[in-house]
């Protein structure tokens, strides 16, 4: 069970992440995107889901990642991501509830390039009963 005291808290990601051209190329190849100068709109999930897993499974937060399914996802893109961007990730646990034994957690991640907010992403994660 997720520690309810963690709702409303913001957690900084572990370190700054530098986006590589090869990562963007690989993501573009999956969807058939030929313009690889800009990352596709959902590219940052590659960063945020990894960060969420690291943060939400910390012992003091306690989410069970093994029974997780993705409920919904939203992106707001203020500045498109390109190779060479150095990003920092902060995750905020926005809400938590239990319905029919399933835990439903809403998490927002904010990706900054320096002081500029580049992408905000909201994920609803469901831990199945």
């Amino acid at each position, binding site marked *: 069970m997720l520690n309810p005291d963690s709702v409303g808290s913001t957690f900084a990601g572990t370190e700054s992440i530098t986006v590589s051209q090869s990562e963007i190329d690989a*993501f573009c190849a999956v969807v058939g995107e030929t313009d690889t100068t800009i990352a596709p*709109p959902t590219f940052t999930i590659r960063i945020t889901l990894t960060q969420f897993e690291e943060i939400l499974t910390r012992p003091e937060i306690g989410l069970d990642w093994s029974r997780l399914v993705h409920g*919904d996802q*939203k992106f707001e893109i203020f500045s498109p991501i390109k190779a060479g961007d150095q990003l920092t990730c902060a995750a905020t646990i926005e809400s938590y509830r239990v319905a029919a034994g399933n835990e439903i957690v809403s998490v927002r991640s904010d990706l900054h390039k320096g002081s500029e907010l580049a992408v905000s992403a*909201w994920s609803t994660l469901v831990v199945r009963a």
Partner: protein
Amino acid sequence: MIEVGTVLEEKVFYLDRALLKQYADASGDQNPIHQNEEFAVSVGLPNVIAHGMLTMALVGKYVSDFAGGSAHVLEYSARFTKPVIVPAGEKVDLTVSATVAEVTDGKISMNLSATSAGVKVLGMAKAVVRK
């Protein structure tokens, strides 16, 4: 002419097990429910299913194409209502279309439809692009 109610041209993407593996590597999501049939069935799924985020990435390509490139996509959201089921040796469809919901000075909002084998796989799917 793009106006409220305009229906955008349908596009069909095809998914197979190789694409799921390729997406697993590109995204870092190596959950076995997207690659290993025995494991998927053991956790109560009908078969291997596509990553919801792969479905969303493909529909995102549809949005980017309409917008004239990824740089023009401002907002994009979806709910994962049903899985895209990908049996071994098969190519399954992801059929995408959109209806323009709002046109303002600088932006176009659209409601997206995504189905696989006739089943709606994304709910409340929306995007806002720069005009």
